[in-house]
């Protein structure tokens, strides 16, 4: 029987007095792609960041691969290295070339020999269509290219789960497609993915489930078709009418 990759049970998170996540419970199965939608400030980023412990939830359980993670007892670096994360603003390392960005994790964290890391890095750059940019610095790349490098950098750690936090919302419209294509590709290869995005086309094509978040709660869950075409909750309806 396969375990869920991520299981959250009654997760709660406060920033000071602000209750940002309220009793979030969900599971993501291996090879599943889930999408989170919701208004700005509804807690989507915080939720993703709690899953890889960039933020600490004060209450509730986080299970990764069948194991409950206690942030005080567990080596969080070990947990994080199996969870890739892609950020809205790429966060590439500007003082390193594309290839150096990609091999930094394997070489420093896993101790992969540089040569092996480079070979694997080159394959990943081919996968995201940037093999000819290996020796460029990030500042020379377009936003879409930067984000594809960021995806390759995360994949270099051979993660079991990839988190995407609005990976295309900082991009010029004409560059969104190239990033989504890489992500679709990844989904088809069986990567488990949790994605915050308002790209409906992407969600319809690859997501098994969509979660609608509102004020820190998941108030509606369903297949992309169910959520986008016949939302049940009035808040979901209202939100979708605004972004469409």
């Amino acid at each position, binding site marked *: 029987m396969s375990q869920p990759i991520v299981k959250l049970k009654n997760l709660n998170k406060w920033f000071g007095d602000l209750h940002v996540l309220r009793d979030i419970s969900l599971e993501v199965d291996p090879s599943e792609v889930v999408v989170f939608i919701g208004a700005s400030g509804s807690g989507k980023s915080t939720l993703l960041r709690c899953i890889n412990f960039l933020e600490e939830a004060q209450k509730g359980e986080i299970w990764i691969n069948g194991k409950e993670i206690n942030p005080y007892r567990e080596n969080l670096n070990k947990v994080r290295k199996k969870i890739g994360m892609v950020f809205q603003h790429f*966060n590439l390392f500007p003082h390193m070339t594309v290839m150096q960005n990609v091999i930094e994790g394997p070489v420093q964290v896993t101790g992969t020999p540089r040569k092996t890391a480079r070979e694997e890095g080159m394959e990943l750059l081919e996968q995201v269509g940037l093999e000819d940019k290996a020796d460029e610095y990030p500042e020379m790349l377009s936003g879409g290219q930067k984000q594809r490098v960021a995806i390759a950098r995360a994949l270099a750690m051979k993660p079991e789960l990839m988190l995407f936090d609005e990976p295309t919302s900082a991009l010029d419209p004409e560059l969104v497609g190239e990033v989504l294509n890489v992500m679709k590709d990844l989904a088809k290869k069986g990567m488990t993915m949790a994605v915050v995005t308002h790209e409906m086309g992407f969600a319809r094509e690859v997501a098994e489930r969509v979660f609608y978040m509102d004020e820190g709660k998941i108030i509606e869950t369903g297949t992309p078709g169910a959520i986008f075409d016949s939302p049940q909750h009035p808040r979901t309806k209202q939100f979708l009418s605004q972004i469409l």
Partner: protein
Amino acid sequence: MAVLEFIKTYSPLFLPAIWITIQITVLSILLGIVIGLVTALAKLTRVKLLNRIADLYITVIRGTPLIVQLSFIYFALPGIGIELSAFVAGSIGLGIHNGAYIAEIFRGGIQSISTGQTEAARSLGMTQSQTMRRIILPQALRRVIPPLGNQFIIALKDSSLAGLITVNEIYMTSRRLGASTYQQMEFYMLAGAFYLILVTLFSVVVQKIEKTLETSKRQSSEIL
């Protein structure tokens, strides 16, 4: 001409003093960089005690005159059995002094690197110290070169105060020679000229370093 004759006669007498000024400046900056880096990191950790110690050090050093600090080390410490030569006391005193300013330079540089960089590194599984060493410091280093160069020049001029604790550097030498020849004004002007030349040379070196860092990003990411 009398001026040229004066310069020609007395400049050679300054050579040892110039060398001492350069040594004391470079030593105090190197010591200041080490102290400054440690202090900046101490200020940025979550360990409250270290934060406090770093704060106290910076507050005391920036809040008291350098001449008091130097005198304390050279004239007062022997009272509790710590006797240092004037040169060593001067270098250490100036190093501790520069360290407080350099700490603030480093802290500013480190804090100017966006938190997104740390998050990206941590999400790859890098430890806090790997993140600092591989991702934050190499970027911060580049940003602190200009203010660090500025501090270098301040340190050079401040080294003249070591003369007052009997280090035979440029200023002290000009005073000594001026007193014995009754040509104090000429000697102060000569000392000033030497400082001006050294400051100019240091500025050029700092600019060279800036340029090199800019054109060879690759190397600087490999050093650490």
